[in-house]
């Protein structure tokens, strides 16, 4: 039993997934707020997106390998990373010219 708990504790240390940071974004007027975010490099994190517009949005980032529809008034969460240090793009794929932003991973 104790060994089992230790094992799980060890796993969560290795995975780093249990205590993933969450960054919250909102969409309004087809703009992300905030549009540029910073996360720690080399660990998983979550992005929570709330759509404050009347139109559906698709939160998409090829850099982060995520793609998820956000209905009007809805909220979604995606898990991304671990990222190497650098800057990664994301967009609302339905309004890619207006709604875009970046994730910067820093060590």
């Amino acid at each position: 039993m104790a060994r089992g708990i230790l094992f799980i504790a060890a796993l969560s240390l290795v995975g780093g997934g249990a205590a993933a940071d969450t960054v919250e974004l909102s969409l309004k007027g087809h703009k992300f707020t905030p549009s540029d975010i910073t996360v720690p490099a080399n660990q998983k994190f979550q992005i929570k997106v709330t759509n404050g517009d009347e139109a559906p949005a698709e939160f998409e980032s090829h850099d982060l390998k995520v793609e998820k529809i956000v209905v009007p008034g809805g909220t979604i969460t995606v898990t991304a990373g671990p990222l190497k240090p650098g800057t990664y793009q994301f967009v609302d794929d339905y309004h890619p010219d207006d709604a875009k932003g970046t994730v910067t991973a820093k060590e």
Partner: protein
Amino acid sequence: MLATLIIVFREVLEAGLIIGIVLAATEGVSHRGRWIAGGIAGGVSGAALLAAFAGALSNAFSGSGQELFNAAILLIAVAMLGVHITWMASHGRQMAQDMKAMGRAVVAGDRSLTAMALVVTMAVLREGSEVVLFLFGIATSTHEGAAAMLMGGAAGVLAGAAVSWLLYRGLVAIPMKHLFKVTNAMIALLAAGMAGQAAAILAGTGMLPTLGDELWDTSAILRDDSIVGRALHALIGYSDRPPGIQVLAFLITLAALALLSKMAGQAPRVSHRQPAPATHAR
């Protein structure tokens, strides 16, 4: 309008390529037009329904509803492509012979057609719900120029259909005795690519281990959000930075399909194998 066209085209491209391959792979099978049209119609209605319930789906399974649904769609398509490959392995040679004998006339293949129609439905459903939501968003906006944008959307769908048609015409230009070898290989790669994508989606939700977050990085050479990258993504599941599980699922599926095809090809069956060709009298 152009922006809308491009957005819709990118979404439709993937389904378009899959339909092109399915059309070529079922070349010569009777009534296949009806089945494939039915598959498309089923996909479009499903997509509209799905778009209507997008919010509910999104919240299902503690927020992983969209991912689970997409993975399920992909895996159903993989299974159906497997059915087709097995069927081709046991009937394909005979089919090619019959087709040569009868021109492009009646070759029966109901079981394979059902499977292929379902593949088309799954492909249209997956991409279609995104297009429907997008166009719905435009249609309900008070935005000036919504009509022009919807026109752009329609043009995007037509452009996707054109890709489908071009791929199909290109493939059937291949001589009949090689055609099914080519389409079978493409279908095996398609299925393996889909299995890989499903595995990557499930790994994204934490349901599968990633087995290495990034097995390689070819984003400097070919980004998977470029048009070529997207096409390769649709055809063979290309990813510029795949997790290990994606590559593993790709390889396992490819190996399983090769094995299945070999076993089906060897299974005893009633065949009207033709005798060795007699030397022609001169």
